[in-house]
């Protein structure tokens, strides 16, 4: 099982759209995928029309394994489940450490319901907190969307140096360009410059697309309503790159 985090220390860069669409791309390849909505402002659940249950709002409901399992909801798509938002740091800590440990009760319990996941995708909140630091430690790869603008690039550089200072593995970071408008010279130039300094940047990038913007209206992954030739398909190609880098095998 691999844990892929979607993270950005800057908001509004298409992080949740990335998490949702990558999770869908993973699921349609036949990988049993769990998307965890860790961002209280995030909308993964919203995009999948999953309402957090009343019980989920109460604090400390994840104290036991059963609580966690009961919180998982099937999406409308095969192989794709969702753990809705509202995890406290404490909950998350329990969750992540137990997910990693093959002998943990959580793993065993999931196996029992025939739902041992191949891939867990984390939609993380856009800040550097205890929770995100835990993600940095635990995730196998951290996908970071960057809009090719000065400000966005700056925040990525900050993240990179934070990793360096705190001795997190920088090779975990998989940045890629998001919301790219090729007609803008700034975008083109920024991409060219950044590609020189960061070899780990993914080859594929997400163009700015009204189809992706309309996800909020459709409340579904973009590939389910947009044509296969459209920008939507890029998520599949990005997922392919991630699979290769994270060595997600069969």
């Amino acid at each position, binding site marked *: 099982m691999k844990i892929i985090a979607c993270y950005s220390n800057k908001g509004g860069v298409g992080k949740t759209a990335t998490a949702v669409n990558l999770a869908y791309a993973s699921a349609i390849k036949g990988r049993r995928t769990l998307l965890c909505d860790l961002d209280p402002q995030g909308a993964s659940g919203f995009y999948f*029309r999953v309402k957090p*249950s009343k019980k989920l709002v109460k604090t400390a409901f994840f104290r036991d394994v059963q609580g966690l399992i009961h919180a*998982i*909801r099937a999406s409308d798509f095969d192989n794709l489940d969702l753990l809705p938002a509202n995890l406290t740091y404490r909950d998350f800590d329990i969750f992540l450490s137990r997910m990693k440990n093959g002998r943990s009760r959580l793993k065993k319990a999931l196996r029992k319901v025939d739902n041992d996941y191949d891939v867990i995708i984390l939609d993380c909140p856009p800040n550097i907190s205890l929770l995100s630091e835990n993600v940095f430690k635990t995730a196998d790869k951290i996908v970071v969307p960057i809009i090719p603008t000065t400000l966005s690039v700056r925040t990525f550089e900050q993240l990179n140096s934070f990793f360096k200072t705190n001795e997190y593995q920088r090779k975990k970071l998989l940045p890629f360009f998001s919301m790219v408008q090729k007609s803008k010279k700034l975008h083109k130039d920024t991409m060219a410059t950044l590609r020189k300094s960061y070899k780990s940047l993914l080859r594929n990038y997400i163009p700015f697309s009204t189809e992706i913007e309309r996800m909020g209206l459709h409340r579904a992954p973009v590939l389910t309503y947009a044509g296969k030739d459209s920008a939507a398909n890029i998520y599949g190609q990005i997922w392919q790159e991630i699979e290769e880098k994270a060595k997600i095998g069969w």
Partner: protein
Amino acid sequence: MDPFTYLIPSLLNQEKVQKKLPAIRHYQLALDSGEKQKGLLLDTFDAKLRQSNQLLFQAGTMLSLYELKTGQMFEQTASEDWAFPADLEPGPVSSRLLQVSRLRAFLPVAGVTFSLGHGSLLDDEGKTRVRLVHLFISCRQRSVGIGCTQYLRGYDQAHEDLRLALEETGAVFCRDVGVVFDVLGIKQEIYTAKPKVALNPDAPVKQSARKIIRSFLRIARRNEKGLVADYDTEFLHDYRVSLRKVRSVLSLFKGVFSPEQTDQLKKNFASLMQKTNALRDLDVYLLNRSQYFDLVPADTHEGLEILFRYFEGERQKEQKQVSRVLKSKEYQNEIDRLKKMFADGSSLPSGPRGEEKSFEFACGLVKKRYDKVCKIARAIDDQSEDSVVHRLRIQCKKLRYLLEFFAPLFPEDESKSLIIALKQLQDNLGNFNDYSVQQRFLRQVLNNTIPDFNGREIKVAESIGALTTMLHRLQWKERRQVMKNFARFDSPEVHTIVTKLFNIEGSENENNCLL
């Protein structure tokens, strides 16, 4: 959570189900009824699909396999004249049918129309909370709906709500194709080559013998139609096994019928079977075709190909011949005569032991055969002649048949465990014999028909040579297993069961010292 697999004896009415859903939850049931298709419902003669609760439809070139337990429908294209899973391209249906039956043909059971619909129970956000598969089938004037809910993780309540709503509109739990057939008025007689013949332990053994023979004669006769039509090779196989069992009763139940009558009957049945010997030999060859090709070097394949084409031609001739015999007045009269003879029994004079009680007779017979098997097997070593192994095989087969015939007189678990214990040894001996028969058959081809292969004699002879060598090697391998397999059968557990079941007072004999 288990899916709710249901049957509704009428149309699934979306509005009715919707009304039965709790209003407070604002559910919306979306249901498409699917495209109506006209086709055939297929199954094997021994109803393997029905027994595994699957339904196979063919509509034009589309093959659809529905699994009642899960509500899954698998589809793939197929030519309209396919009969065996191996005739189909690899696909989701063929892979499942291969698990159901490799040897049996899939034959039409009934003409039907059917449609597969899909449903979703949505919440007020448009999120699917339960999925539903619904299959509507009609046959002549009758129709039935069957379906299956699909639980989505975390939505237990919605699943329960839909289940209740379905039940309130007439759905009942059902995972049994038999019930579906009943509702549709489809009559499919259940066939088994191994019937359980209920026997009375106190009844005269002559009566039990007649009952067993009648039952196997019935089985043989049920296979005649399929044998003549040549649907698949199992019809002939079952036909022959049934007749062989009849012959076994006649020869093993010594003294039950008068000796003259027994001799005559044995001849009658042997003559019936003998007419099908060549066809069965050819069937076995053709069924093993790919195995034979794998056995021999590639440079002998050309000759083997010619040989198999010859076998195919011969089989066609033999099949026609057997069909002609089975359709003949002479055969019909003979088999009717035999059937009647065992049905009323008045023309069957009793032998000296005919009036003995079935149970005691059975115990004595099984015990004697068991002792005989042990005696022969224990004397076998590496140096023993093949003929001794053949004798052991025959005795084992007799023992197996006796255990099967008399199984209803003894506790099921114990007699079954004896049959299972014997099985491995029997399979081993069976293979040993098959390899030997096949070599003999090839020798006959070599001796008698090689000149028919005009100009290609050498190629054919080479392939026969190669195949015979390999078959001999395989036979030798089986031969080496016999002692090991017998040792496994010759266990204290088996002795205990035999002693317990069959060692009735007074039946002990000197062979017991072997135990």
